């Protein structure tokens, strides 16, 4: 579904992601685990095109997207839920969702979104800035989903969010995957959430993957020890 090869990304003089290789299978949920500052956000930003990559290739299906602008990548089928949500605070909830849509949105698409996140329907006329962190996270996911992605990319979706809502988000991600048959990449530091959602996990350290394990062979303690300083 997504094949990343030899990807190098950095800021100015410094390199943050080093010649990285990985691929994402169809309908897979891949977790990328790593402590703060290990390069998770940098990697995801370069996938969506907010940060240019220095070298390497990003294939979405069989389309090379590494040279495209962000909005063109979204149109090719990758959607992004950034760290910190980045919803538009002055737009209403339904307007926020619409920013992710191209062309008119069918009633059935709204129904699907609101069935997944009923709270957003309740809040649809409120300003995004007035929502709680958990509600904003759901809103950011809804905004990404409305573009009908083949690959959904989420950056630390549980950061700063109440445990009860973290459960909801895990459930929503599994539901999205099975209903839409899409692949998902999610970066995380919370091991329990990872164990809840993923099929496979990669551990990132200083811009390189240092560990890979499928769901069955995954040991929470082992990942925890890799994440520990």
């Amino acid at each position, binding site marked *: 579904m997504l094949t990343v090869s030899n990807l190098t990304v950095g800021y100015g003089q410094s390199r943050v992601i080093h010649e990285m290789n990985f691929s994402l299978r169809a309908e897979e949920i891949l977790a990328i685990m790593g402590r703060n500052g290990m390069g998770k956000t940098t990697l995801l930003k370069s996938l969506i095109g907010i940060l240019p990559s220095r070298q390497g290739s990003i294939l979405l299906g069989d389309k090379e997207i590494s040279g495209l*602008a*962000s*909005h063109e990548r979204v149109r090719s089928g990758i959607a992004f839920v950034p760290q910190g949500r*980045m919803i*538009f605070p002055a737009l209403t909830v339904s307007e926020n969702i619409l920013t992710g849509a191209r062309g008119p949105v069918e009633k059935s698409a709204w129904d699907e979104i609101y069935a997944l996140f009923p709270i957003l329907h309740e809040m649809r006329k409120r300003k995004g800035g007035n929502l709680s962190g958990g509600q904003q996270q759901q809103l950011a996911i809804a*905004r990404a989903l409305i573009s009908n992605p083949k690959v959904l990319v989420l950056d630390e979706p549980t950061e700063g969010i109440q445990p009860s809502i973290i459960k909801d988000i895990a459930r929503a991600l599994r539901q999205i995957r099975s209903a839409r048959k899409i692949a998902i990449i999610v970066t995380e530091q919370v091991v329990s959430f990872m164990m809840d959602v993923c099929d496979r996990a990669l551990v990132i350290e200083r811009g390189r993957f240092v560990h890979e394990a499928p769901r069955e062979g995954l040991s929470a303690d082992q990942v925890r020890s890799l994440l520990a300083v």
Partner: protein
Amino acid sequence: MQSFAGFSLFSVLLLMALGLAIIFGQMGVVNLAHGEFMALGAYTVYLSSTVVHTYLPALAPYYFVIAIVIAFLVAGLTGWLVEWSLIRFLYKRPLDTLLATWGLSLIMQQSFRSIFGAREVTPTLPEWLMGSFKPSESIDIPINGVFVMGLTLALTLGIWLFMYRSRIGLQMRATVQNRVMSGAAGINTRLVDRFTFSLGCGIAGVAGAAFTTIGSTGPDSGSRYIVDTFLVVVFGGTASLMGTIASAFGIAQGQSILEFFLKGTMGKVAVLMVIVLVLMIRPQGLFASKIRS
């Protein structure tokens, strides 16, 4: 009737300021050639008038309404080309943008001079626009003033509806809030910029059409209005439509009334002094503003 002259001036200033404020508020670009887009609109009306009166005199009573639409399209299309060929290379370089748009204003003025001559021109306005209402002996309301005012209000409402009801309006509002996230949500922010610039210029073109009802058009007509337009925008702040309307109204009325009492430029000076005083107390303008960071 001094106050009705003020209404026409208000209309022109408001439309000019709306265009300027949309471009500045959305894109952070100060368009020093904005006045020339107004002149372009005015010349478009003049050309339409000439063509219609020469070749299609039967259309003479109606051409003005169509000419307004053409003025919008011509100025808007020119704005589109200018953004594409010039402005888009200068984002994040405010000083270069100032220089470039100033240069553009000189080029446009010279083009007007070469094409239409240095003398001022006036379109032949349809007769129904020239009369006046006389609700009583002492009151005389010019129809062109009322028409221009109606046009301005309709366009202002139209812009508001466009910004708050259309998809591209939504994309403009998203882009001004968070440009990077807008791109990552799938919005083509470059296209939004081009569209925004073009829309602002188109509105200036309509201001030019309105202007032909109160003055004759010369190559430097636009540059005579640009300072007042900046005053309106600075005074009102770029954030709110109401701020721009109130500010345009205050400045246009203030100038018309004070010019009546003080004669000539003294009216302008008095208005300027009031504005400077207000801005000393509220540097962000009468209404708080938020621009792209």
